[in-house]
């Protein structure tokens, strides 16, 4: 189906269902209940899930397949964002042209950076990409202020040119839209004490992520994808097999740069603003974390990793000591305080600590990320079943 094997098709179908039903799935707790803070089904966070999902899927095409660890991918995200916002300022607030330009400019920039960086491999490649990204950040922050808005960044303004759009009515504001459909508009559905929000922007981003995901599956299963995996496995043999690794890796680099640009463009489409911190190296580090955490080289891993990190960032970081006290109120006072002291460093502002520890544990014990973890658990159950089967069948013989 769709040119995919049954297994891949099922995976795509599962991801499609999950993203389309996300407003329900992510809001399992009724409003006002103590657990409502674990609900992630609000538009802003759901948009982040899918946008960073795209970013990580793209990064995985480079790192997961070829093994080239880029520490500067946020630069392409940032460039995409700047391109998109300029398109929306100058031409139209419709997000389609903005995203096309974001992908194109990010791709061109990736071609330049990749052409230079890919002349080296290993840690040298990582440092080169890092250097390019930090340069982009520094320039966006300082010299390029006329284009980037410097520290304050860029927002949509009333007096933007918007050549294709009509004049705004009194009191109206320029908003990102898809042929008039406002990105920030939402439909709210109230069922009992549950509240579900269906946001236009989220669904547009989700559809784009599904397309991006589908494309990634195609790339993984194509001869091109095979060559990329061969690059990771043995470049020497590849060379002596009459294949030139350079254009393959460069193509992978540019494709993943375009994915990053698409993610950057979508971010602008959602919140219509951009600042240089989007290009800082910590942002590049974040996508590395996402991909590894989920499982580099796997299809679904990066999406899972992106989801997990964004969930932690937004939900875990909101838990404070008051909330902990309400949770553990049933315990005797001394014990309650003790447990809260133990947990406190890992939540709220300390969520990065939790992230760092999880990440280290994954790198040490689960190099294949969450996906490998899932597979191991599945295997465990399978083996158990097998054992039971043989145990059950033996007496019958």
């Amino acid at each position: 189906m769709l040119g995919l094997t049954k297994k891949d098709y099922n995976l795509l179908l599962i991801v499609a269902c999950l993203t389309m039903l996300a407003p329900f799935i992510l809001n399992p707790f009724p409003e006002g209940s103590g657990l409502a803070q674990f609900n992630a089904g609000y538009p802003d966070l759901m948009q982040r899930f899918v946008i960073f999902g795209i970013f990580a899927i793209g990064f995985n095409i480079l790192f997961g397949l070829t093994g080239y660890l880029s520490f500067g991918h946020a630069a392409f995200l940032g460039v995409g964002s700047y391109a998109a916002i300029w398109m929306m300022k100058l031409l139209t607030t419709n997000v389609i042209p903005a995203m096309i330009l974001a992908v194109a400019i990010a791709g061109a920039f990736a071609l330049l950076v990749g052409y230079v960086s890919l002349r080296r491999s290993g840690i040298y490649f990582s440092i080169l990409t890092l250097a390019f990204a930090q340069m982009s950040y520094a320039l966006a922050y300082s010299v390029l202020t006329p284009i980037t808005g410097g520290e304050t960044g860029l927002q949509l303004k009333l007096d933007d040119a918007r050549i294709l759009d009509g004049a705004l009515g009194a009191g109206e504001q320029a908003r990102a839209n898809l042929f008039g459909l406002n990105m920030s508009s939402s439909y709210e559905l109230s069922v009992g004490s549950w509240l579900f929000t269906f946001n236009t922007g989220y669904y547009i981003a989700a559809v784009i992520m599904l397309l991006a995901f589908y494309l990634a599956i195609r790339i993984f299963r194509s001869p091109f994808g095979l060559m990329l995996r061969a690059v990771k496995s043995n470049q020497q043999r590849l060379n002596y097999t009459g294949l030139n690794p350079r254009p393959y890796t460069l193509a992978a680099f540019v494709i993943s740069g375009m994915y990053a640009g698409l993610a950057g463009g979508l971010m602008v489409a959602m919140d219509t603003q951009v600042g240089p911190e989007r290009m800082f190296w910590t942002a590049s580090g974040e996508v590395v974390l996402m991909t590894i955490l989920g499982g580099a080289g796997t299809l679904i891993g990066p999406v899972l990793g992106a989801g997990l990190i964004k969930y932690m960032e937004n939900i875990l970081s909101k838990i404070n000591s008051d909330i902990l006290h309400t949770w553990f109120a049933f315990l005797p006072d001394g014990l309650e305080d003790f447990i809260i002291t133990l947990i406190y460093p890992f939540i709220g502002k300390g969520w990065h600590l939790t992230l760092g520890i999880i990440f280290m544990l994954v790198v040490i014990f689960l190099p294949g990320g969450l996906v490998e973890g899932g597979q191991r658990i599945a295997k465990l159950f399978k083996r158990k079943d097998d054992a039971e089967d043989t145990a059950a069948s033996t007496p019958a013989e």
Partner: protein
Amino acid sequence: MGILEVKNVGKRFGGLQALNEVNLSVAENTCHAIIGPNGAGKSTLLNCFVGKLIPDTGSVMFDGQSVLGRTPYEINQMGISRVFQTPEIFSDLSVLENMMIPVLAKRDGAFRMHAYADMMSEKDILEKSEAMLEDMGLAEKRGMQASSMSRGDKRRLEIAMCLSQEPRLLLLDEPTAGMARADTNNTIDLLKQIKEERDITIAIIEHDMHVVFSLADRITVLAQGTPLVEDHPENIKGHPKVREAYLGEAA
């Protein structure tokens, strides 16, 4: 006029003259062995054929075209395939995938952006790869990860990968180094079979005289970077210069 013509090749590493005035002609559809004691420059010479090294002087012509200054993948596309001392395969990939890569390289050239088609629906590639695996007795292992095979099977796979490109010249760099006797004999049989069944020229660097004398039609003895003798195997065996070179090494 041989398929591989080496003229006056010299190569210097610092103070060491690794190759000096090497002249060599490998005739088409023969098996030509290059032997010599350690440090005779065999591997350096081989590296000059495949583009890993560029000699300081002289020329290396393959089928009338110079290979000098070309990259390894360009030389491979000209029709020279190389088997390494330790098998170089794609360890992380499955045996079938290993096999498909050279077949794709043969069909599509050094680079082709083929990112949307499903690999497994490329019927011609798949058929050719599977036929080759069948030929080499690796068909049962097609789904296995290459790194988990035995050393002998890895060698077999590497040779299969090279053959699938239908090279005109197959270079073998000590193909039985570090192998047990049984594996060595299997490899000799395999190479003999290849020699008989295919129109292919083989150039082999080898230490093991048993391998050399079972396969070679012609032998060049290299010592201290210079060819000492070139002759038929039976003439090489008792040649005084050869004995000197080898005994000299032993002493």
